[in-house]
């Protein structure tokens, strides 16, 4: 008894620590779960960077909306730009809207980037990062997929690939990706 009791205690403690470590080490440290997934996407009404119009999320109800947070100074955003451009070309007439929200940037730098990269999807500015804060943005690029029902279906942190966009759009709008 005298030996077994502490031994069992030590073994239980080791098993507990090992299980916690195996659970923690088995997870992807870059994957940040968003509490917004499954909930109504925070609404926004933001001016396009060219100042021509205001884009309201509420007006896009019924379509799949891909909200991409980016900036001209963001290297990873340049990496994912071709994927976004290809997806935009494929889905722009299929009930999918891509919105780029400029994050902590200057308007001049952002406009120069848009012109240089040939971006044709709507890009808006986010004064005071109010929309970024409402979406719980940690670091860009971050991409949110919003379903036709206005709920956030998925969040992607880091550069998103073309295949990932197609897969998410396919889940939300099967006829568009078919």
């Amino acid at each position, binding site marked *: 008894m005298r030996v077994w009791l502490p031994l069992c205690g030590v073994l239980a403690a080791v098993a507990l620590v090992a299980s916690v470590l195996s659970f923690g080490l088995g997870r992807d440290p870059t994957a940040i779960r968003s*509490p*917004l997934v499954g909930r109504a996407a925070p609404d926004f009404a933001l001016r396009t960077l060219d100042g021509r119009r205001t884009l309201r999320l509420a007006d896009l109800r019924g379509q799949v909306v891909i909200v991409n947070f980016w900036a001209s100074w963001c290297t990873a955003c340049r990496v994912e730009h071709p994927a976004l451009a290809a997806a935009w070309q494929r889905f722009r007439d299929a009930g999918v809207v891509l919105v780029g929200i400029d994050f*902590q940037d200057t308007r001049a730098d952002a406009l120069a980037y848009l012109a240089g990269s040939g971006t044709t999807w709507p890009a808006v500015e986010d004064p*005071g990062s109010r929309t970024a*804060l*409402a979406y*719980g*943005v*940690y670091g860009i690029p971050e991409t949110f997929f919003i379903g036709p029902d206005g709920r956030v279906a998925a969040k992607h942190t880091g550069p998103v690939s073309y295949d990932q966009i197609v897969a998410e759009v396919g889940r939300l709008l099967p006829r568009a990706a078919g």
Partner: protein
Amino acid sequence: MRRPGIWLGLALLAAAGTLGAVALRGPAPARTPADQVHAIAAGLRCPVCNDLSVADSPAPLAAQMRETIARDLRAGKRPDQIRAEFVAAYGESILLAPPGRGVGLVAWLAPALLLAAGLVVALTAVRRWRAHPAAADPTPSTPSPAGDGGAPSTRSPAGDGGARAGPSAAGAGRVSAANRRLLERALERLDEEERS
């Protein structure tokens, strides 16, 4: 002053009571709007920093969070509403202190439970030691000679009835008493030899 245990217990109770009262009272209430913003920001984790509060972080996003808090306070929102909005966007990891419910409750209760468990273990050990002080005697026991009336030791040779002392502290105490008697006899013999 003959019972240091009582005084120690009273001192521990007084310390625990003081700490509890301070914890329940919490920090002084914020008076100015800037104080209110700081109080809320100090409880939020800067999302783009390593272990810095929104109040302490120089990051632009933290500054924008402070502006958001100030604007929301001016709009008449309560501090818990403002915190809830950040939690809705970022999850509970945005809070520097875990919530007092769900899994977060473990972080609040674990120190108190561990302290209580430690006290129970310490008190049990002290009580056991006081009841049988020889249990802590590191002197190895020696074989008990047959017929000395002493209890069999853990090293009793075969033939003493086959009984072996149990591993209890009481058993260890009896062995030591037998040793003490042996030692006293040996000392008496030495004295007799010296006299003779």
